[in-house]
């Protein structure tokens, strides 16, 4: 059975048409699940988790900050993998994914920065402190902007995707190096900062809502990627018969 699923996955990744029908089946049930999971996680964290003995309630921003930061990071890693597949194996779907993954990732990076700043003010008294995590996230946002900008400037969609793919691959290496170089700068100036965001110090009552909201946001990210990929596939395959047929007679699952 395993081999069969691997073959199906490869087939799906290969042909845009198969992907379109596959996503039509997946989206109708994945979207509600993602929303419900995210909302339960957030409501649980905001309303029911105990308040922190040190920070009171401002720590509740963690339930959106940490999922957004991890989502942005994972998104860029996914961009790097899609880039590798697009540049080396020249797979069309990987090129589509490069366009589909970037926007929501950039949004999550922005969210991580905003929520981090709003969390910093009550905790440390300033919105921005150039600490290691926030600086890395700022640079990650710049790199997202670079990938998106490059894709929009180059006219030919396939060439744009491949150029962005190469940039994403180089970018992934850079993300890792930036993380260490920024932390190195921190150790020079104020010793290691308070490991505020670390999950380890968080007590279980706070950990579960955090994990649920993280899962919810990731699922929502997947929904966003599937939707954007469908649009990109439809536009790229517009000359094919199956898209022409689709445009005139929408499938039953269509919104």
């Amino acid at each position: 059975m395993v081999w069969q699923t691997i073959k199906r996955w490869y087939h799906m990744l290969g042909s845009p048409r198969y992907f379109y029908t596959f996503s039509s089946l997946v989206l109708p049930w994945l979207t509600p699940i993602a929303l419900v999971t995210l909302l339960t996680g957030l409501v649980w964290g905001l309303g029911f988790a105990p308040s922190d003995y040190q920070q009171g309630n401002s720590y509740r921003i963690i339930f959106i900050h940490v999922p957004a930061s991890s989502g942005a990071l994972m998104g860029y890693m996914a961009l790097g993998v899609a880039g590798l597949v697009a540049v080396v194996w020249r797979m069309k779907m990987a090129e589509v994914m490069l366009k589909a993954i970037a926007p929501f990732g950039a949004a999550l990076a922005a969210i991580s920065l905003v929520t981090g700043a709003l969390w910093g003010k009550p905790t440390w008294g300033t919105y921005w402190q150039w600490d290691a995590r926030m600086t890395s996230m700022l640079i990650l946002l710049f790199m997202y902007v670079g990938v998106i900008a490059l894709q929009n400037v180059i006219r030919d969609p396939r060439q744009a995707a491949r150029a962005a793919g190469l940039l994403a691959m180089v970018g992934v290496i850079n993300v890792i190096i930036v993380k260490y170089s920024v932390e190195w700068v921190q150790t020079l100036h104020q010793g290691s900062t308070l490991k505020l965001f670390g999950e380890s110090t968080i007590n279980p009552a706070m950990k579960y809502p955090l994990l649920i909201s993280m899962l919810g946001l990731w699922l929502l990210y997947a929904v966003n990627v599937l939707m954007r990929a469908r649009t990109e596939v439809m536009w790229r395959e517009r000359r094919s018969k199956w898209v022409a047929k689709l445009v005139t007679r929408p499938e039953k699952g269509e919104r």
Partner: protein
Amino acid sequence: MSDADTRLTLEQLHCERDDRVLFRGLSLTARAGEIWQITGANGAGKTTLLRILVGLHGFYDGGRHWWQPDWQRELLYLGHQPGVREELSPLENLDYACALNAQGGDAMAGLKAVGLQGFEDVPAAHLSAGQKRRIALARLWLAPKAVWVLDEPYTAIDQDGVAQLDARIQQAAEAGTLVIYTSHHQVGEGVRRLHLAKGRAEVLS
């Protein structure tokens, strides 16, 4: 013309650009010693077809097969631009092109053949467009290659230059070189023509 001489095979070549189909279902076999003239209006995709043949353009469907794996070693490609840097002299430009493409031959003799004797050390910036193209064309008089792919070789070439180039191309073809070039000018008889128009490519003769 036995099968052994086949240099290039195209199978159902399909290429699109900016929402337009340049050509579709293009299949042909080109053999050693043949001269192929590719014609078509501006924007019909002549240059793109050549760029696909030499591997500069990779976004196409269908098959493009050369007769041997390292065909690039036996390729002489003159692109749309002459490929000449203005800061360098014709001799320096030619030496660079030959070193890069592992092509032997006496550069001075090549430049003389295209009528550039006396200009060997003049920076290319001072030369006319026709003379710059002649620097690129000089490579045709150097060590022979199995395949010539020439993009508009006749542009900015004066009358006797055209005759000289015709003779050289026919001479090379007889020696077994496959010549593929784009131009409205026909080299001579026995030239196979490929015409690109309105998304289709027909082999005329």
